[in-house]
């Protein structure tokens, strides 16, 4: 059957696959025929993702990507891949006047430094084939707009925005593409840290022209486009998925 978005024959590596966008991406990639390698820190939740994957031959690897030894161990167990989804990320709500060195380092380490170093290692260890695709889960926050309380998260995603453009340039000769998806608010557990109430979320949804938040699988489909051969001429870009929010 004709399908330009098929991932058949491709091995796709996804970080932060224990929940949210990472989980949805892993499941949808498996449905499109990919062999999926998933990683996360939480054994039970990663396994929950694993059991929902379609097809066979998938791999799950527990790793804390903030620890160099765990990255090394992960890479030694990683097969050669056709795609990498740098999706793992955290949120730490705070305001500019309350930023601490500790909180800043924590967010930058997980959201920016770890995926950059992982990408570098994947290339150095020749785990990424020519023609492969790297996708970052970024955000409209820090790239197109700001959101209240998101100063640390925005900083980390703004940095990723810069990295994607330069890495795309550097890696073009190796025929490795680098892109990101920039979603608006997506219905995942990252919203449950308690600083935003349910009423506030409902009010916030009304600001979206399409009157709702995104679903994790909707972001997964965009990631899949960027992983597939259909986007073979696309590199260094952000794919906006925001229900129209940034139009206003």
């Amino acid at each position, binding site marked *: 059957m004709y399908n330009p978005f098929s991932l058949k024959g491709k091995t796709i590596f996804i970080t932060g696959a224990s929940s949210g966008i990472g989980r949805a991406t892993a499941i949808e990639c498996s449905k499109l025929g990919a062999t999926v390698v998933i990683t996360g820190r939480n054994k039970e939740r990663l396994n929950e993702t694993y059991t929902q994957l379609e097809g066979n031959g998938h791999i799950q690897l527990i790793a804390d990507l903030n620890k160099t030894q765990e990255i090394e161990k992960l890479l030694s167990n990683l097969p050669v891949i056709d795609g990498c989804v740098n999706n793992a990320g955290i949120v730490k709500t705070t*305001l500019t006047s*309350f930023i601490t060195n500790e909180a800043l380092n924590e967010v930058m380490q997980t959201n920016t430094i770890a995926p950059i170093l992982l990408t570098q290692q994947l290339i150095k260890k020749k785990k990424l084939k020519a023609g492969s695709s790297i996708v970052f889960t970024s955000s409209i926050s820090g790239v197109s707009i700001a959101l*209240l309380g998101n100063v640390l998260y925005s900083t980390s995603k703004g940095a990723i925005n810069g990295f994607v453009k330069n890495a795309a340039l550097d890696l073009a000769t190796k025929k490795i593409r680098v892109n990101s998806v920039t979603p608006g608010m997506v219905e995942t557990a990252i919203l449950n840290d*308690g600083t935003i*109430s349910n009423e*506030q979320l409902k009010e916030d949804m009304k600001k979206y022209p399409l009157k709702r938040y995104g679903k994790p699988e909707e972001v997964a489909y965009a990631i899949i486009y960027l992983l597939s051969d259909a986007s073979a001429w696309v590199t260094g870009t952000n794919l906006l998925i925001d229900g129209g929010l940034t139009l206003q």
Partner: protein
Amino acid sequence: MELKDFIEKFAEQFDETPSEEFEANTEFKELEEWDSLTILTIIAMVDEEFGIKIKAEEIRSVDTVEELFTLVKSMAK
């Protein structure tokens, strides 16, 4: 921390409302300056001063500065 100090710290988080306006029985949600930014500021202040992560809904559940102080102190135990 005593109530007096808490009121002072609470008042410090407001940029437009004069600090003299803040008392134990001030109904903070009725202040013109009260919005989603000030809620986040109070959450951050409580975290910084007491090491407690109070939720927006919990702040909204009380009316006066003194009631908030009592709530935070009870969470500190």
